[in-house]
């Protein structure tokens, strides 16, 4: 594929060919079938909006967006992992562990002459690095010991859960005020808090990374056909390690966002978060077998869960029914998705 000189006739011919092709319904479904989550999200928003007008107010948006910033980074990382055909059960535990380690470091640094901003930056670096290291551990265990991701991340879920309490049993409130200012900073007339913007920025950046960059393409390839990826010359093991590092680092980032907003680091943070992250990815149309899914779906999945949770609170449904509803939505989401797939495959 070396030469790039396109002759005029070639260009015209292929352009004409493309124009002449009507997109078949198959291709249409293939391209937009995954977007049905957007429709479901719109529908749910509409229904709850009609039931309770609060959803369309600033307070409603605030409640919804506030319950997404923690899950978005986790769900982004989880999407990459699930696209490779793996799963990461440890993201919640990594969140808790990395924020507690970061909190301990920051508490220690507060006694020194380092400024508040410096400690805040350091806190972020430590949180993300510790998260990345946890992901590295996952990746190494999965690729070197050839253990299934489910087993490895189940083990690290337990181990890190314990390690978190070994580092610090109590919440740490001694964190730099700059961090708290950032975490509670409201922007754009109160419509956004800074952590929400950071989370949304992550969706955009990693969405582009996934769909337009080599790393993303290879992530899909590995989940789609690992042997083909190997034969195409991709270093699959190294790539997988990076995918788990990414998931861990994003969990570390999520931990810092939560700590900043809650003005503390707590060993309770992140508990059970992996379930919400996986649910968001699955509702967003990703296949657990790998190779299929995207971050737009994951974004919608995350917001769908958030709108459901907030909406059910607004219409005064008890917490237990909220969880039942989310369970029902997961089943519905996946079965409609499979239905669409079987149509597009025909």
């Amino acid at each position, binding site marked *: 594929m070396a*030469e790039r000189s*396109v002759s005029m006739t070639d260009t015209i011919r292929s352009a004409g060919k493309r124009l002449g092709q009507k997109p078949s319904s198959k291709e249409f479904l293939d391209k937009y079938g995954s977007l049905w989550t957007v429709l479901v999200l719109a529908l749910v928003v509409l229904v709850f909006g009609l039931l309770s007008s609060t959803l369309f107010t600033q307070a409603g948006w605030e409640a919804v967006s506030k319950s997404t910033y923690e899950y978005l980074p986790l769900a982004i990382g989880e999407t990459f992992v699930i696209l490779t055909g793996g799963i990461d059960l440890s993201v919640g535990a990594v969140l808790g562990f990395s924020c507690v380690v970061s909190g301990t470091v920051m508490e220690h640094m507060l006694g020194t002459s380092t400024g508040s901003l410096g400690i805040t930056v350091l806190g972020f670096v430590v949180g993300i690095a510790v998260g990345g290291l946890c992901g590295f551990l996952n990746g190494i265990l999965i690729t070197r010991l050839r253990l299934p991701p489910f087993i490895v991340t189940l083990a690290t879920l337990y181990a890190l859960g314990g390690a978190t309490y070994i580092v610090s049993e109590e919440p740490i409130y001694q964190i730099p005020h700059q961090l708290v200012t950032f975490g509670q900073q409201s922007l754009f007339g109160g419509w956004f808090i800074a952590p929400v913007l950071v989370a949304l920025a992550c969706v955009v950046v990693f969405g582009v990374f996934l769909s337009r960059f080599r790393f993303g393409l290879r992530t899909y390839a590995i*989940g*789609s056909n690992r042997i*083909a990826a190997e*034969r*195409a*010359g991709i270093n699959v093991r190294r790539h997988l390690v990076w995918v788990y590092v990414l998931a861990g680092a994003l969990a570390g980032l999520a931990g810092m966002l939560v700590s900043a907003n809650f003005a503390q680091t707590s060993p309770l943070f992140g508990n059970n978060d992996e379930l919400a992250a996986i649910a968001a990815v699955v509702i967003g149309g990703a296949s657990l077998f790998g*190779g299929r899914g995207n971050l737009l779906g994951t974004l919608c999945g995350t917001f769908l869960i958030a709108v459901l949770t907030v909406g059910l609170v607004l219409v005064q449904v008890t917490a237990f029914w909220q969880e039942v509803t989310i369970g029902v939505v997961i089943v519905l989401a996946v079965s409609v998705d499979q239905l669409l797939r079987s149509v597009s495959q025909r």
Partner: protein
Amino acid sequence: MAATVQAEEGKSASQGKTPLLAARQITKHYGSVQALRGVDLELYPGEIVGLVGDNGAGKSTLVNILSGALQPSGGTILVDGDEVSLNSSIEARNRGIETVYQDLALAPDLSVWANIFLGRETTRKGFLGWLGWLDRKAMSTDTERSLDRTRIRIGSVQSKAGQLSGGQRQAIAVGRAVAWGSKVILMDEPTAALGVEQQQRVVELIRTVSKGGLPVLLVTHNLPQVHSLCDRVLVLFQGQLIAELFPAQCSVEEIVSWITGAALTRSTNGG
């Protein structure tokens, strides 16, 4: 696109030259199964060599070893006369050895162009390109052109490989090997799922490639095809090469008798 570069080599296998790719005493066992028992093979510029044998004779094993996808238990591989170790597919590919695998090695969720370019993606210039920003447009148009040239019809290069028919998928795998191959092309049953017309296309493609100077090693069960297309036919029987036949001087029936081993018993009985 080195496949279409014209070389001066003649068509006949000239024993005086160094083979582009050679295997010496290759053995392979899977546990207790002895799949290959000391196979020697040489590929010279521009020749089309058939590799035939019954199911389980070891054809795919040999092809996978030559393509770096599988490691031999013993023996050596030489490229341009130099001993090399092909520890992975990428090493073979970097030496210009392209393979159409029996299982095609396509990612069903990726588009046609992504499958063709996977592992050697075209990126844009500059810093973002260094980070891996894909030049999707260049890859699509390149794919369109190279498939056009091979006259393989697959509709849009944007369609997912998994949504194509078995024959179309096979055509993509063949097109990929031809597009990238610059030294040797190995094909493990490249026409098995193809219709008559597409089969003819692949046959023409193989001829074009070999005229360009690249040897093609062709594994197939289609013996009339082997007989009409190949310069030389190697017969693999229970992991050993038992015959080298020249279609110009032998019949399809003769090839069959070697594949089934009948000729072998005859020759040992007779000798």
